[in-house]
């Protein structure tokens, strides 16, 4: 997430100016830093049990990105914890756990977790280590400087040894060091190592607990139907008596304004009963909304003069373009996209008399807790929130809509006291997403005498993510979540202007892996390729020239070219394209190698990815995230499109919203720049350049310029794997 988006991501009027609270800034004797019967909390992140087991509080959601392992490595390394005896817990929301990127909430979005918890967790681990060493030194009557910690033990002069479990209570009562000594890089034992993921064993034997799997005594199940037309409402329910008499049915719940749910003893009973319920919707005005209408409105907005946000304005681009003999113009379109997490949305809530409990695969703990508090009328502290594993998130599970629904259902008089799990069907999940917004971009540029872009303008026409998915307002008509990736480009282009023409239709939009970059990198890198061609230059050389003043970006691009073999002939009938961006602080460049064996058939053989993501905490996690993000981008480029007909999403399941399949997935080769800069975000960045790299390669293969996605719209289907 861009710096601007992050600073502005505040809930209501909550203070932005508050100091960063770090887990270790705790007065001795405070409730958090306290000895318990069986364990002592050295600070909010480190709990040491009497038997030496250590629980690490990692305030992030594990949705596949490996953050539980990565941040545990960071904390455990400074703490000198025995890696074989640690476990990770996601704590209850509390100020001390807030994501430093946002200040006011626990929220796992925007590839911010490693980037922003890295330093605080190193400090928390180091502080706890120093307290443990101090406790041992005190006990032995020696100097702390003559002791050291290793693998959950303190070792002192004369080989005196004591385990952390035996020291923790004493240590927890000592003063908290305000500036503990962090390890030097040469002392790292876990950071930088390809340590195996803590969650993998449970994910290969079926024991991993996702939101869908939480088991509770007396658990009831809810199935939901939401009005398929955006903005429509629930008008009437029919056949309620019949449905109530169906096996296992406990309740029918109206969820004004636009949904109804049936609750039963078993999920299948609930779904069957819901199917039997006659639900009438009042579809209202949006029923006339269609993709064709949206495309038309977008085109009109290209010319709009009012309410245009200026996201960037340098030099005199309009004057340069007006005076130019030959300005180059191209329009690009991108569709709405669904998150399609394999685990559909679900949330389990039990509403008690004056407390309640929630089990949910959420990316936004504070938001979810607050939403349940509001529904139940209880204070947030009375809402105990358990974050389960997430079967994918990609930004969707940061929203609270499904949490609110579950809380409302569980609050029904006849259901209070029982835990109820709401599970959305795939159809509901597909049709009630917060989509990656559709967009139309107009790019214009003029080349200077040196053949490089002299002036560059981009108008982005798209719905607003901020207005749809957050409580934020726009300032001066700019939505930084939509324009991120379009501003502050590393390329040296002297005259630039980026405009945003908000164009909303009542289709909910939100954060989809790489957010603003997902569209902007596609259009920018495609347009840059068109400019390169106009200048008669190679895609790589053109970019390299534009990065003459930017060594970090240039190094990534050069590494990519070298490992791809750019400039050398590709194997038989294969063609290459490349694209790059800087997203979430990570510079990533990707090359795609593909062939077009027959007209309309496309075979992607290889994706090469080069990245500079700063310090690599775990090279295998980074590699895996870049692989996964690249294939996520490839899936969208080849196949994915959400269309609107008669005010509703036309797609229902994976038959009409196809995802990339195993036989189409190339290997992704990952090459990392060695860096000692702090870690930057890797969960999303590699998604953004893929579409443009594919289109660039397709141009090389066919001479055809693709300016809209997905590729199957242009008659390209994946070739079956051939020899």
């Amino acid at each position, binding site marked *: 997430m861009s710096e601007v988006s992050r600073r502005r991501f505040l809930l209501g009027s909550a203070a932005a100016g508050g100091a960063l609270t770090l887990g270790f800034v705790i007065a001795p004797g405070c409730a958090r830093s306290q000895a318990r019967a069986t364990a002592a909390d050295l600070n909010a992140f480190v709990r040491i049990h009497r038997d030496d087991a250590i629980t690490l509080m990692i305030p992030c959601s594990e949705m596949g990105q490996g953050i539980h392992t990565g941040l545990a490595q960071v904390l455990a390394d400074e703490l000198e914890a025995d890696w074989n005896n640690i476990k990770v817990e996601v704590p209850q929301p509390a100020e001390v756990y807030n994501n430093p990127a946002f200040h006011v909430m626990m929220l796992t979005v925007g590839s911010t977790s490693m980037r922003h918890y890295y330093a605080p967790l190193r400090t928390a681990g180091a502080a706890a280590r120093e307290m443990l060493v101090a406790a041992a030194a005190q006990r032995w009557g020696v100097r702390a400087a003559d002791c050291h910690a290793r693998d959950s033990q303190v070792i002192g002069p004369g080989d005196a040894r004591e385990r952390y479990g035996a020291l923790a209570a004493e240590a927890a009562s000592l003063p908290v060091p305000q500036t503990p000594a962090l390890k030097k890089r040469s002392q790292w034992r876990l950071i930088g190592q390809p340590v195996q993921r803590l969650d993998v064993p449970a994910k290969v034997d079926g024991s991993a607990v996702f939101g*869908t799997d939480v088991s509770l005594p007396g658990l009831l199940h809810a199935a939901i139907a939401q009005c398929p037309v955006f903005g429509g409402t629930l008008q009437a329910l029919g056949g309620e008596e019949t449905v109530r008499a169906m096996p296992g049915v406990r309740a029918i719940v109206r969820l004004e304004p636009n949904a109804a749910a049936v609750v039963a003893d*078993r999920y*299948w009973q609930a779904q069957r009963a819901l199917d039997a319920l006659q639900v009438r919707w009042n579809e209202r005005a949006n029923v006339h909304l269609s993709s064709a209408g949206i495309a038309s409105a977008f085109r009109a907005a290209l010319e709009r003069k009012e309410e245009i946000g200026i996201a960037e304005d340098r030099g005199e681009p309009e004057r340069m373009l007006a005076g130019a003999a030959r300005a180059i113009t191209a329009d690009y379109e991108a569709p709405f996209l669904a998150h399609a997490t394999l685990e559909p949305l679900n949330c389990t809530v039990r509403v008690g008399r004056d407390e309640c409990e929630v089990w949910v695969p959420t990316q936004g703990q504070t938001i979810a807790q607050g939403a349940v508090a509001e529904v139940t009328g209880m204070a947030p502290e009375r809402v105990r929130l358990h974050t389960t594993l997430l079967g994918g998130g990609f930004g969707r599970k940061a929203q609270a809509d499904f949490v609110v629904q579950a809380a409302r259902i569980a609050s029904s008089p006849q259901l209070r006291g029982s835990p109820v799990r709401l599970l959305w069907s795939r159809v509901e999940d597909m049709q009630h997403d917060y989509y990656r917004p559709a967009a139309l971009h107009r790019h214009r540029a003029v080349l200077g005498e040196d053949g490089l872009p002299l002036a560059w303008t981009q108008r982005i026409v798209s719905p607003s993510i901020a207005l749809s998915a957050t409580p934020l307002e726009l300032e001066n008509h700019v939505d930084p979540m939509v324009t991120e990736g379009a501003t502050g480009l590393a390329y040296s282009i002297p005259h630039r202007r980026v405009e945003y023409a908000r164009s909303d239709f009542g289709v909910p939009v939100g954060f989809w892996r790489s957010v603003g970059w997902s569209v902007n990198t596609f259009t920018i890198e495609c347009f840059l390729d068109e400019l390169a061609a106009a200048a008669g230059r190679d895609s790589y050389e053109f970019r390299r020239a534009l990065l003459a003043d930017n060594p970090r970006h240039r190094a990534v691009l050069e590494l990519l070219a070298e490992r791809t073999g750019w400039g050398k002939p590709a194997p038989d009938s294969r063609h290459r394209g490349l694209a790059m961006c800087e997203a979430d602080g990570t510079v990533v460049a990707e090359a795609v190698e593909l062939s077009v064996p027959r007209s309309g058939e496309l075979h992607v053989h290889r994706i090469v990815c080069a990245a500079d993501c700063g310090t690599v905490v775990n090279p*295998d996690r980074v590699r*895996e995230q870049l692989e996964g993000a690249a294939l*996520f981008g490839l899936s969208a480029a080849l196949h994915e499109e959400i269309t609107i007909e008669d005010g509703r999403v036309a797609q229902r399941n994976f038959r009409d919203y196809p995802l*990339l399949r195993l036989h189409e*997935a190339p290997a992704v080769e990952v090459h990392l720049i060695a860096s000692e800069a702090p870690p930057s975000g890797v969960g999303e960045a590699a998604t953004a350049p893929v579409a443009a790299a594919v289109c660039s390669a397709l141009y090389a293969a066919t001479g055809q310029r693709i300016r809209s996605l997905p590729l199957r719209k242009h008659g390209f289907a994946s070739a079956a794997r051939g020899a």
Partner: protein
Amino acid sequence: MELIVNGRKVSVEVPEDTPLLWVLREELSLTGAKPGCLAGLCGACTVHVDGNAVRSCVTPVAAAAGRRITTIEGLSADRSHPLQRAWIVHQVPQCGYCQPGMIMSAAALLAEKPRPSDADIDAAMSGNLCRCGTYSRIRAAIHTAAGETATSATSESA
């Protein structure tokens, strides 16, 4: 109705047309098989019936009565199945939601073709969707489990 699940006989009382997936998850507390699409399109619900990979979300329980049903929980008692070991070596799972279904599809493949080619793997596995992009690691893990050497050098530091 009597079922044989992971080698044990169990008795369940459910309507005959209840999908096997829900019987496993809700009557027998075997939550490894997952609801993904509930339409047989994603493979997250894959289990074995008499050794064949089936989509339990669209298999009525009556069709599996009296047959040997194997779920991910029954593949081994201790993650010792070659596929589970290979999945750990290659660090395959990211979110992990699709992986029980993936492993069951792969197990059915290896039972039929102990040394599958890439084309065999494509044919057997392309019905299982993964949203996180673990496909190339899945392929490598299947080859490893099949006893071939994994030669996958996918990353280096510059």
